[in-house]
């Protein structure tokens, strides 16, 4: 069966499972809609949190980025996992103990202020909308690449899916579909990783294969990482495992970005509300641990995938005749994501560190999608990766949409305008705002606003610099007042971001990419995958 046939089969199968779960877990109460009745097992909540957090960017873009960054890729690995230690120790159990439905509700109560609550609502909605637009676009792109439908049709299919299970099932529906989506995405990530590790090093565990000796290809008998360093030296690139070598970020940059990502992770509202769905704060502690285990499974595999892909790519392409290039090279070349410029006219691909003699440019974001093809794995594995990418994007989108819906119906409509709103009306309002949010997300996915880079950067910065300090101080410092909290929101964000901006690397990378995006509309989608990654580059 062809790649396309397998993709239809696997995507159809996984989507029916998601719909089945949504129907089985539909809700009739506001408690069910907002916090899944607080009856979620910590293990299940761990899986749901992992799927909630790991979006199209983690699944598709991260390994590729690390592959091109070498050691410095650790900023994503440590930044996006280390935040969970802060979450588990400092926030999750205490927020759960307080026992409300939403984060703005906690803020409003703790700081005895409607103003603080309303500001928190707008922050949550803003963060979630910018984030969700990228996810919907990601869904559209996976569809268009693997099923050859229009990107916009893909976005519409994604909207339909999320509409169904978010509106019908609320948090309960989302939780159990996220559990299923986690299983799909982790299997889709691990199978190619294990297969490649087995093939290249003889170890089935990628985390071990990562530090082992290669058993095939022209570098057989050499340790993987030593080989990579040697290849990079030969090509005039900075060594893969080298830390503070020329051409890589400085220590101050790495420290600042890692810290920013950790704090940002701990402050994202859609991750925080997941800890409201468990029975008590003890369960919140254990489920944070489970979440980190499940996230760690992908995050410790990713750098191994990066290293394998790097060796594979250079070995398959460098010094090869262009006319003999493998089929996947041609098909990605058509998308414009691989570009070969024959500078010296010898018809041979030369990959070099020096921009004047380098003839090959490969977009970072295609590494995970192209990896199974590069390693010559069967068609069903390629299709599985597509289904995994969809699971990652859909699960994150659904979690974000619930934040928006709960913020509108519970924090704005109920607390500000209609305090005595009966439960059944509130539930209907929650469903209507969820439906509305899904549609807006779809529209944003189809007509992406041009200024998205700045907006997404702002959204992540807002999560890092507003929610985290406000929640942390609210929990541990009795003296923090409402005036302090309200005043801390806006300037806090700007001070934080300009500080990070000063010490980090001024967004030169993302600037270059946004220029590329503007000039080449067909590459636009890749931009969306990287939306979250970009936001970090901006700080």
């Amino acid at each position, binding site marked *: 069966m062809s790649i396309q046939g397998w993709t239809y089969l696997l995507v159809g199968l996984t989507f029916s499972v998601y719909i089945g779960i949504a129907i089985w877990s539909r809700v009739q109460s506001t*408690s069910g809609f907002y916090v899944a*009745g*607080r*009856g979620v*097992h*910590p293990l299940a909540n761990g899986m749901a949190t992992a799927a909630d957090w790991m979006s199209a960017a983690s699944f598709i873009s991260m390994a590729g980025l*690390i592959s091109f960054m070498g*050691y410095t*890729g*650790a900023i994503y*690995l*440590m930044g996006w*996992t*280390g935040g*969970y*230690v*802060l979450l*588990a*120790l400092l926030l999750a*159990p205490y927020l759960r*103990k307080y*026992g*409300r439905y939403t984060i703005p509700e906690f803020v409003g109560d703790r700081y005895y202020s409607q103003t603080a609550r309303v500001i928190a609502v707008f922050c949550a909605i803003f963060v979630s909308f910018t984030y969700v637009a990228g996810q919907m676009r990601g869904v559209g792109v996976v569809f268009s690449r693997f099923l050859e439908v229009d990107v916009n049709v893909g976005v519409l299919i994604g909207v339909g899916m999320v509409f169904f299970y978010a509106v019908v099932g609320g948090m309960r529906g989302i939780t159990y579909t996220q559990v299923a989506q986690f299983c799909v995405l982790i299997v889709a990530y691990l199978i190619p990783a294990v297969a490649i590790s087995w093939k290249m090093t003889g170890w089935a565990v990628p*985390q*071990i294969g*990562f*530090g*082992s*000796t290669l058993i095939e290809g022209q570098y057989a008998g050499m*340790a*993987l*990482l*030593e080989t990579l360093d040697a290849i990079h030296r030969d090509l005039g690139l900075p060594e893969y*495992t080298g*830390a*503070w070598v020329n051409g890589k970020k400085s*220590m101050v940059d*790495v*420290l600042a970005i*890692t*810290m920013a990502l950790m704090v940002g992770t701990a402050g994202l509202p859609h991750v925080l509300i997941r800890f409201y769905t*468990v*029975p*008590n*704060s*003890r*369960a919140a*502690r*254990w*489920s*944070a*641990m489970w979440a*980190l*285990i499940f996230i*760690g499974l992908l*995050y*410790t595999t990713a*750098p191994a995938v990066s290293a394998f892909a790097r060796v594979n790519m250079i070995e398959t392409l460098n010094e090869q005749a262009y006319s003999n290039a493998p089929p996947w090279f041609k098909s990605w070349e058509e998308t414009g994501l691989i570009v070969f410029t024959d500078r010296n006219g010898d018809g041979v691909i030369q990959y070099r560190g020096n921009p004047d003699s380098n003839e090959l440019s490969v977009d970072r974001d295609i590494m995970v999608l192209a990896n199974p093809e590069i390693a010559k794995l069967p068609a069903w594995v390629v299709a599985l990766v597509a289904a995994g990418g969809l699971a990652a994007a859909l699960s994150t989108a659904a979690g974000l949409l619930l934040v928006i819906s709960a913020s509108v119906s519970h924090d704005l409509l109920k607390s500000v305008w209609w305090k005595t709103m009966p439960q059944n009306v509130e539930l209907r309002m929650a469903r209507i705002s969820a439906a509305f949010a899904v549609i807006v997300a779809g529209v944003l996915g189809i007509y992406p606003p041009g200024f998205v880079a700045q907006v997404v950067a702002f959204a992540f910065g807002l999560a890092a610099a507003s929610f985290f300090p406000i929640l942390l101080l609210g929990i541990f410092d009795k003296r923090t007042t409402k005036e302090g909290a309200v005043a801390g929101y806006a300037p806090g964000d700007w001070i934080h971001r300009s500080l990070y901006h000063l010490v980090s690397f001024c967004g030169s990378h993302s600037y270059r990419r946004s220029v590329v995006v503007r000039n080449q509309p067909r590459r636009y989608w890749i931009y969306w995958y990287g939306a979250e990654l970009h936001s970090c580059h901006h700080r």
Partner: protein
Amino acid sequence: MAALLSLWFVVSYLLGIVFVEPLNQFSLGGFPLGFWFAQQGSIFFFIILTFVYAFGMDRIDRRHGVNEGPASIPPTSTSETTE
């Protein structure tokens, strides 16, 4: 908890970033040690830290008799929001 947060800081910021080059002189299996901490080890340590925290808090809760009961049993709907 302070000890756990210090360890969090040590494995990621110190071993994975600040002292990465001196640590790369040593190797762990086929990994330069500092590189391993940055891309693998720190994540394993994060998981251990959250485990030790959850386990330790359970013991403290038990010692002071405030065990909230099994983590997996949902509360009855009446106890909702009143805890």
